[in-house]
């Protein structure tokens, strides 16, 4: 009775169909003899007689087949198949580069094509769908990606030297590390400063309604002003300050550089931080506070032992929003000379060097996702009374 | 007339309604009672096909409900739920006019019907027509809910614990109003509740359900006299059954014509239930009451012995 009603999982079928179409019809890789000359594009089945590409389609067909009659067992098998695909993909690239790159092209670059980007996207969606259907916890989802990362790493280090993104990284690995450090330092400084300032502001707002109205008004206003405009508007007064006061100029305050970037980041970070802190302090169940007072706790004890523990997850949510937002905004700050990963993005765009754009944009995306996942996991663990 | 023939409903592995057969006559108030999870709401919702039945057949005026288009079917059946389900973005008047508008009545006729219903349910048009649901009290909102269900003058009314969320006083007055409405409108009503007093007060036919099956059905008084098993007995109030029965019998059924004796000092309306007469006797420590009519004119008398001895005579 039950099994007779089992209907195909249309989501997985649609995703696999999209993946197969992309794999068949679109360009998978491009080959260029060096960094300057534009390359030729190849579809997956045009490479190595099509056998490696065929090997990649099999797991997708398996997933589609399993999705026809979904049950926990078949879905778990499908999950393993998708992971296998992700683990195999770098090795397909290894095969492709082996068959395409001639020994007389030492500078040859293999570019990743639309087809592969789409496949990666489709497979990640498939993983999300399978994780949801199987009810796996989020942390486990990240754990499952470890073998995938390991496979890519091994392939990159030993066999995928011609991959253009990797070549681009190798050419400027020092710069890359410095950019990541600067990026993280700016984000960290802005988040920490907004945490401290935000706490003070939130406490002041609880005392004085006037501060609350004015504060939220100003921060909302700031949040609405586009980042590029705010960076620009801060440039002029800071340049003036740096020119007027040598002491400020000595610590690096000038129109461009870290100072306007930091100030703007701080301004944007304050709104989510203050809002969450205020809510966290304000919206604790009044009955809980009343009973705490009733038991004879004083104000300090109530704040430290009741309000703060209950507020912690909401504050962490504020930190999460702020951090993710700051990672993106810091990229824009590269335009006013603050450094960071945005430098690669905008330099790359300026030189029409797409690999360089990717070298900046992909880590920014990765940082945002990792920060989001890590802080979410933390707040999940710290939720009072256990996970919901 | 509503007929259920061996109707079954399963949710996953659970059987919510198990081969249930029931016949609700035209103009009858049929009340389904039982503990929560006994399948009474499911049964109700299968009649207007908000839930589709898995087995058996449900007939409306002799035709299976599946033979109707489900939307057309529901527009022919009034439906009232506990939380009212009024649309919060519509005024009272617009909420009441919902089904007539779905049926594309002319605008003037809708307006006329809405005002008529508001009067019928004691909602002054000028005061309430433009109000929004959140501005109403629980009792007022439920009146609007009932008016909305009656708007297109359906033959059948399905009511799913309509008064369950109201305070006892409002609930009683709405029950009374529903009885008065029913006396004028003669709808076929299926009413679900877990409040036994409400069930006894409203039912022409009382249906006691347990685990998806009917344990016993019949006139309330018959169930009180002769419960099928301990479950029905405890549901009906156990030791309190005497008082519940007294609440179902009117003073006029037991009173004697005025005798030669002096009038008793305490008076009771002839339409009042025996339970009220008993309470009055207990309170004033008297054994005799004067029964009066609507104009407070003595029409008979009721003694404690008459009150108690009624069962046999």
């Amino acid at each position, binding site marked *: 009775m039950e099994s007779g009603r089992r209907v195909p999982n249309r989501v997985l079928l649609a995703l696999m169909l999209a993946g197969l179409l992309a794999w068949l019809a679109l360009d998978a890789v491009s080959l260029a003899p060096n960094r300057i000359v534009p390359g030729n594009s190849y579809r997956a089945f045009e490479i190595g007689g099509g056998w490696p590409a065929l090997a990649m389609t099999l797991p997708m067909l398996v997933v589609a087949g399993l999705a026809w009659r979904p049950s926990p067992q078949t879905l778990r098998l499908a999950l393993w198949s998708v992971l296998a695909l992700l683990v195999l993909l770098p090795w397909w690239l290894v095969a492709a580069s082996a068959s395409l790159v001639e020994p007389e092209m030492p500078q040859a670059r293999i570019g990743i094509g639309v087809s592969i980007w789409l496949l990666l996207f489709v497979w990640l969606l498939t993983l*999300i769908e399978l994780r949801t259907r199987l009810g796996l916890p989020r942390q486990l989802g990240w754990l499952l990606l470890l073998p995938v990362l390991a496979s890519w790493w091994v392939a990159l280090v030993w066999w995928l030297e011609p991959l253009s993104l990797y070549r681009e990284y190798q050419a400027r690995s020092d710069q890359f590390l410095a950019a990541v450090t600067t990026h993280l330092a700016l984000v960290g400084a802005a988040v920490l400063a907004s945490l401290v300032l935000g706490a003070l502001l939130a406490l002041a707002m609880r005392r004085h309604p006037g501060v609350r109205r004015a504060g939220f008004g100003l921060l909302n206003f700031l949040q*609405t002003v586009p*980042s*590029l405009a705010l960076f*620009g508007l801060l440039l*002029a007064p800071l340049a003036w300050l740096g020119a007027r006061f040598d002491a400020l100029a000595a610590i690096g305050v000038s129109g461009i550089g870290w100072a306007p970037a930091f100030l703007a980041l701080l301004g944007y970070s304050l709104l989510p931080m203050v809002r969450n802190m205020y809510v966290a302090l304000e919206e604790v169940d009044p009955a809980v506070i009343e009973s705490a007072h009733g038991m004879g706790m004083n104000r300090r004890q109530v704040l430290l032992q009741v309000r703060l523990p209950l507020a912690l997850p909401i504050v962490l949510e504020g930190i999460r929003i702020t951090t993710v937002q700051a990672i993106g905004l810091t990229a824009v700050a590269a335009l006013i000379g603050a450094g960071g990963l945005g430098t690669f993005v905008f330099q790359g765009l300026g030189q029409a060097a797409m690999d360089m754009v990717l070298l900046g944009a992909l880590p920014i995306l990765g940082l*945002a996702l990792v920060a989001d996942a890590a802080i979410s996991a933390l707040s999940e663990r710290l939720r009072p009374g256990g996970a919901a | 007339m509503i007929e259920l023939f061996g109707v079954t409903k399963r949710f996953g592995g659970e059987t919510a309604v198990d081969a249930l057969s029931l016949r609700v006559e035209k103009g009858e108030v049929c009340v389904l009672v039982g503990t929560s999870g006994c399948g009474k709401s499911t049964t109700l919702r299968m009649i207007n096909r908000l839930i589709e039945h898995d087995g058996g057949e449900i007939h409306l005026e002799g035709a299976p409900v599946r033979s109707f288009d489900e939307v057309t079917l529901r527009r022919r059946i009034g*439906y009232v739920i506990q939380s009212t389900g009024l649309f919060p973005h519509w005024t009272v008047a617009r909420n009441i006019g*919902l089904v007539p508008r*779905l049926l594309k009545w002319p605008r003037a006729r809708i307006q006329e019907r809405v005002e008529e219903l508001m009067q019928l349910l004691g909602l002054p048009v000028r005061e309430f027509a433009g109000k929004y649901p959140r501005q109403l009290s629980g009792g007022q909102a439920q009146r609007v809910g009932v008016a909305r269900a009656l708007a297109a003058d359906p033959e059948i009314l399905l009511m799913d614990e309509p008064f369950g969320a109201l305070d006892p006083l409002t609930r009683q007055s709405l029950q009374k109003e529903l009885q008065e409405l029913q006396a004028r409108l003669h709808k076929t009503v299926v009413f679900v509740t877990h409040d036994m007093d409400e069930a006894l007060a409203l039912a022409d036919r009382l249906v006691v359900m347990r685990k998806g099956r009917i344990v016993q059905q019949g006139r309330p008084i018959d169930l009180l006299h002769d419960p099928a098993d301990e479950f029905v007995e405890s549901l009906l109030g156990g030791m309190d059954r005497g008082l519940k029965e007294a609440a179902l019998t009117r003073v006029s059924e037991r009173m004697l014509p005025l005798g030669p004796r002096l009038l008793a000092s305490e008076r009771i309306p002839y339409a009042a239930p025996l339970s009220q007469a008993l309470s009055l006797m207990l309170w004033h420590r008297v054994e005799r009451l004067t029964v009066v009519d609507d104009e407070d004119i003595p029409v008979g008398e009721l003694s404690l012995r008459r009150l108690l001895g009624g069962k046999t005579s």
Partner: protein
Amino acid sequence: MSRQELTIGAAGLQTQMRSWLAPLAWLFLLVLFASGMPHLEGAFRWIEPDSREVIYRRAGFFVLLGQHVLVVGVASLLAVALGIGSAIAVTRPAGRDFLPLVSQLASIGQTFPPVAVLALAVPALGFGTLPIIVALLLYGLLPIVRNTLTGLDGIDADVREAARGMGMTGGQLLRQVELPLAAPVILAGIRTSVTVNIATAALGATVGASNLGDPIIAGIINGNTAYIVQGALLIGLLALAVDSVFERLLRRG
């Protein structure tokens, strides 16, 4: 009676007008600065005394403003249509299979920095206006989808039950009940989407689109603070004007 209604009507109109005051004021300032910027040469000369040219002249400010509004407008309209459409599709019985995936995607997607999305659009689609519109569209979809889903999800289940029980068809339920009730939340999503898009579009100047971001980028490259201030001022005013329109629309609900 009618006189009383008339005075109420007049008072209502007055509050109506007063509540549109803020958006109108921002719009007025925007138009004023866009048209009068060249007349402010004196002020900009003070900011940037050493440069030969202190007013950005490669394109008129009105042209830049128009292009900015056009790009954001096209992308936002498409995002609204696609976003609300897909959120509705996955909440209907026929599309419900896709609901978990779409709602997870919408929330994960919010993590993507807009500048990264813009940068990734270029390798895929090339330079110019089209990649910007596509990037803005894709990124702008997410808050709209998420808020539409939240709005539809927040509707009291009993209201839906009653609507179906009264014999509303799926379309009637959607148009007359679900969308009106979810409208404020959906509108808030559109507001977020448009605000982010105005900011991200300004970065489009770095990928070859011409809009209000141009003077800023040109100013940064040439070290001309006056250009930067001109661009920043107009973008800021545009963002505030649009935001105050949404503020006004949301407060009516």
